[in-house]
């Protein structure tokens, strides 16, 4: 069976997302080949002592970690933009988009923190580095959006959480530069980039693999966002549909309650 055919089976998939999904899968496979086979490990030789140093094969984690970090921030930016859009327009489209971006962004953010920690252990010799600006900023952002998702889940109906959630998202994103600034001042040391990425010999193939990683994870995240949006949209539709039914039911009850609807006496009077 051609999986690209518009099926009669009901899913959140469409022709477009199926193609996108296939492209993303193929991309992941290609990225694996590039990251594990075609690129070289990061091995440098000390100019004087001739000692070998560098990240060795741990660098292969960066082809995963760096693209995901970029996409986390992109997803959160999308969430903030959609939240602002919601406050201006007040239509469900913006709200569902914001929720989808926050959920997917937070999932990827968790993975960024985990993969960063796994990478940091062999390279920085620590699972976690307090005082690193980007680590702390990303962690706080993650916690801010955990709160966002908790608020979303706490609401009885999706509609009532929309406005508070939009405010939380905007405050969270506004908070990023402040967190960044304060952590930067807090401990004036950053292991990131200066000590690692900048020193890394960015060869053509390394750079290409990083860019490929951004594109591939971009496809993956886009696919997830589209489906998450559609799930959110369906949840809304289900509520609306349920309300339609409830209205009909209630009106049905109304006509059978036995209260005389004609002008005249009600039953209690007689």
């Amino acid at each position, binding site marked *: 069976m051609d999986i690209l055919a518009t099926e009669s089976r009901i899913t959140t998939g469409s022709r477009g997302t199926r193609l996108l999904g296939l492209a993303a899968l193929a991309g992941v496979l290609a990225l694996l080949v590039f990251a594990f086979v075609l690129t070289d490990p990061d091995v440098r030789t000390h100019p004087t002592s001739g000692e070998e140093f560098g990240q060795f094969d741990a660098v292969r984690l960066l082809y995963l970690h760096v693209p995901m970090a970029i996409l986390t921030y992109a997803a959160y930016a999308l969430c903030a933009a959609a939240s602002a859009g919601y406050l201006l327009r007040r239509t469900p489209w913006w709200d569902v988009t914001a929720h989808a971006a926050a959920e997917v962004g937070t999932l990827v953010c968790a993975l960024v923190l985990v993969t960063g920690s796994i990478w940091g252990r062999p390279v920085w010799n620590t699972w976690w580095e307090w005082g690193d600006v980007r680590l702390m900023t990303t962690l706080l952002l993650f916690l801010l959006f955990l709160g966002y998702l908790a608020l979303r889940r706490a609401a*009885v*109906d999706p509609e*009532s959480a929309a406005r508070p959630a939009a405010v939380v998202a905007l405050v969270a994103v506004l908070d990023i530069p402040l967190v960044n600034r304060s952590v930067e001042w807090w401990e004036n040391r950053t292991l990131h980039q200066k000590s690692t990425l900048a020193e890394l010999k960015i060869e053509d193939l390394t750079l290409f693999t990083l860019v490929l990683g951004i594109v591939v994870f971009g496809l993956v995240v886009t696919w997830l966002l589209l489906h998450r949006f559609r799930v959110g949209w369906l949840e809304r539709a289900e*509520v609306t549909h*349920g*309300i339609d039914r*409830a*209205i009909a039911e*209630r*009106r*049905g*009850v*109304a*006509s059978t*309650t036995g*209260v*005389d*609807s004609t*002008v*005249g*006496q*009600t039953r*209690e*009077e007689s």
Partner: protein
Amino acid sequence: MSVVELRGVVAVLGRFPALAGLDLTVAAGETVLVQGPNGGGKSTLLRLCAGLVVPTRGEARVLGFDLVVERHAVRRRVGLLGHATGLYDDLTVAENVIFWARAAGLGRAAEARANWALGRLGLDGPLADQAVRTVSAGQRRRTSLAALAVRRPDLWLLDEPHAGLDQEGRDVVDDLIGEAVAAGATVIVSSHELDRVRRLSPRVVTLAGGTLVGDRLGVVRDA
């Protein structure tokens, strides 16, 4: 001019359509009694008219303002007595009434108006300086009514105003409603005490299942 104009109004609370397509028109200066079974939508109707519940469908105007876009203008012109009394337990009866008078923007006139309302509801004297937490349920309800009366609203929305009051208290409430109507206000009352409210109001509307199932204008037939 009609003070309340509802056409096909649906109001959803959570996922529950408390009002499921309601049509109702109330003219200025009218007193309307709302009755019907519990869960029929009486309280939601009153909250909707106060601009606290947004209609999800249909057309709704109160005091000439659209309830979707001009709720704020509606809110400051109505007085709502709900199931809760909306008072601060740790403040005295008088302090509560004065606070709500000031909150309504009465400024310098607040205290005088509050004193008038306290007297009108029989809350003057030592009772006025008691903390609300220590007074009886009936006195609490009267305090709440005083806090409503100081606002001199154009539209009074009273949800079971007689509940928990003694005979004298009920009479005071009825007098208050009568005075408000005489001063040109419109009153919508929900009550289980039909005979009592019918003395005030010739018009009885019945809500059930979130819709209007009865609207009777007529003479009270005393049993």
